[in-house]
Each structure stands twice: as structure tokens, then as C-alpha cells.
């Protein structure tokens, strides 16, 4: 079964987390504020989203507000792709 956008985002965040890939968080956890993701991890998330979804995030999307949580990341992806991310 293909993974949903949210599943993809959760996996990407786990892979990019300096706390290790078994780190736990909810979709509304402030991953940046809580240190689940650091500044370099943001680069990794951006790159993986682009690779997996075949999109290029425009410069205006590259703001910390979009990288605060799975929810904000999903909203950004939805807006870029024009559809709602499945849960």
C-alpha cells in the first residue's frame, strides 16, 4: 500500500532527526521548538519532500513557519500540490 503524504512526512522527519529515527512525536508536536528537528534537519526534510513528491519547493515556501510540525508541513505540501494530504 503506498504511504500517505503524512506518513511520508513522519518518516522524513524521523530520518532527519538528530535524536535518532525512533524519536516519537505527534502531528501537532512542535518539532523545531522541541529540538526533534534542527536547522540542518530542515535541509534534509526539504530535500526528501522534493525527491519523494517530485516537486520543487519555491523560495516563498522555505520559511521556518512551514517546518514547525507535521501539520504545517502537510499544509504546505497540500497547498503546493493543490490537494489535501490523506491522514
Amino acid at each position, binding site marked *: 500500500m503506498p504511504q500517505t503524504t503524512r506518513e511520508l512526512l513522519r518518516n522524513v522527519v524521523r530520518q532527519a532527526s538528530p535524536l535518532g529515527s525512533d524519536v516519537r512525536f505527534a502531528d501537532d508536536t512542535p518539532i523545531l521548538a522541541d529540538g526533534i528537528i*534542527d*536547522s540542518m534537519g530542515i*535541509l*534534509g526534510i526539504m530535500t526528501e519532500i522534493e525527491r519523494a513528491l517530485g516537486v520543487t519547493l519555491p523560495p516563498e515556501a*522555505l*520559511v*521556518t513557519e512551514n517546518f514547525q510540525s507535521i501539520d504545517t508541513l502537510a499544509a504546505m505540501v497540500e497547498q503546493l500540490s493543490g490537494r489535501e494530504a490523506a491522514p
Partner: protein
Amino acid sequence: MIRAEPAALHPDTRAYLADMSALMAKMKLPPLWTVELARRRALNKMLIASSKPPLAPCDLVEDVQIPTRAGPRRGRVYRGVPAGTADLPVVVYHHGGGFAIGGIDESDHECRRYAAATPALVVAIEYRKSPEHPYPASEEDCYDALLWAADRAASYGGNPARIVLAGVSAGAGAATATALRALERGGPRIALVAAVTPWYDKTLSQPSMQTYGSGFHLDREEVEHYRDLLLPAGAAGADRYNSPALFPAPAGLAPHYLLVAECDAVADDSYVFAERLAAAGVPYELVLAKGLIHAFTLLAHLIPAADPYLDGLHAAIRNA
């Protein structure tokens, strides 16, 4: 200190560079400077914000419009302590970023730190960048910011007789260029230029460009890239403003405080420039930050070894 073999990195610096390299390799990321420019500017801003640099509390942080010959530019005024509680030097801050990236948001933490720790009145300008705005647009905006700061300093509680031109990397070079223009144009008297890891040779011909030109945070290829964005003629575009290491310094130039990172491709720019200052009888102090890297004052929250050098830098401004 011209040398053929690289000096040892400070353990804090080595750890920072190792972390960066490991993540870039893990994520298969290209060097940031190779990313398309609009995207790079956004990324640079986001990466600095997300690294959570400490934001020193200030008595005043005010967004302003600074009039320049090209029209109003974004600026920001910082005052570390309430007006009237100290004789505040006026720091005109020249941000770094190779003249092509960076801005006042990206250097907010550094400006706040200058304002609070010195304490000082700080005026930062978002100058026009290359390649959209041909050289010397960036430097002329900085000069116009100096004029505005000198005119408005007293109304903000700063002492216009104590103007310090500060900057990091390309911005440090611009700070010296502003001092040169102030001298040539009969502009405001400058008490001090506080230059952090300045880029003073656009021909990239100093030995440190070879010694530290790969693997020390700022690679020669990156410097060359930014040079070519700034000066389409390349090395042939070097002049006394953008490359003061290559030209005699005029007598009467403002005193300089040169904070040099030992493991920096542009380290020798400062040593050569210091010889120019000495030949002209211009007072200067050169401080060597052992084992540190380019623009380290912006990375102080990630490289603890930077801290003592920040104290020295703030003290130099305080005493200007």
C-alpha cells in the same frame, strides 16, 4: 600569519564542521552556494532562524526605512539600554553574505548582541545585492546608511561622535570601504572599523586562499562565485574599495580592529591589509581567533570557543 600548512581547528570548530559534513553527506545535499540564488537566499534565512541563535533583549528594536541614493531601504535600529543611561557608540552594521545573500533578519542576533553587550546604538541596513544591482550599489547604500545614522543617532540616544563601522565577511570589507569613502568625501568622522573575518582581496591571491580554501567552511570556489556575482570582470574588477589589501591605505583612515579567524581562506587578507595600515600610520589592532573559521561570530551559539573573542570585540567598540 602566512603559512603553507593549515593550523589545527579548535575542537569546537572541528565538531561543528563534522556535524555539518555528516548531515550533508547523509542527505546527499549539495553545497549551499551551488543552489539557485533565490532559493539560496530563502534557505540561508531559514537555516539561521532555525538554528535558534540567542536574541539578546534590547531596550529598542525598530524597523526603519533608510533613505539612499536608490530610494528607501529596509533598516533596523537597536538600542541595548534605555537612552540617557550610557554614552552609546553608534554601530553601523554591514551584514555578510558575499554581497549576494544575507540581510538584516539573518544578522538580527548579531546586531542585538552588539547593542546589548557593548552597549550600543546599532543601525543595520539591507543594502542592494549583486548580481541584480551592479557594484558598487551595495557599498554606496552602506555609505548612505552611515550618513543617516550620523544624522539620526542623537535622536535615538547614540553619540554621533563615536561612530563604529562594523561588519562580518563581505560586510567587513564594506565597512572599510565606507570608512574610505567617508575620508575621501569629507563625511562623518569614524571612531573605529570593527571588521570580523574581512574579505579584502577580490583577486583571491593571498596564500590562505590555498591553505584554507577547501574543507574549512568557506571554500575558494564559493568565494570565487560570490566575487564573480559582485564583479563580472572578476579579479580585474578589484579596486581600492573592494580590495583594500591591494592598495596603499590613505593616512587618516579610521583605526581598525581586525578579528581574524585562523582557519579562514581570507585570513591573510587581514594580515596584508594590516601592513597597509601600518605603512600609513593608521592605528589598528589585529586579534587572531585560534582554530576558528570564517564568520564565526555569527555561529557563536554553535561554536562556544567564539565567546572570548566576542567579549574582546564588544570591548573594542565600547572603547571607541
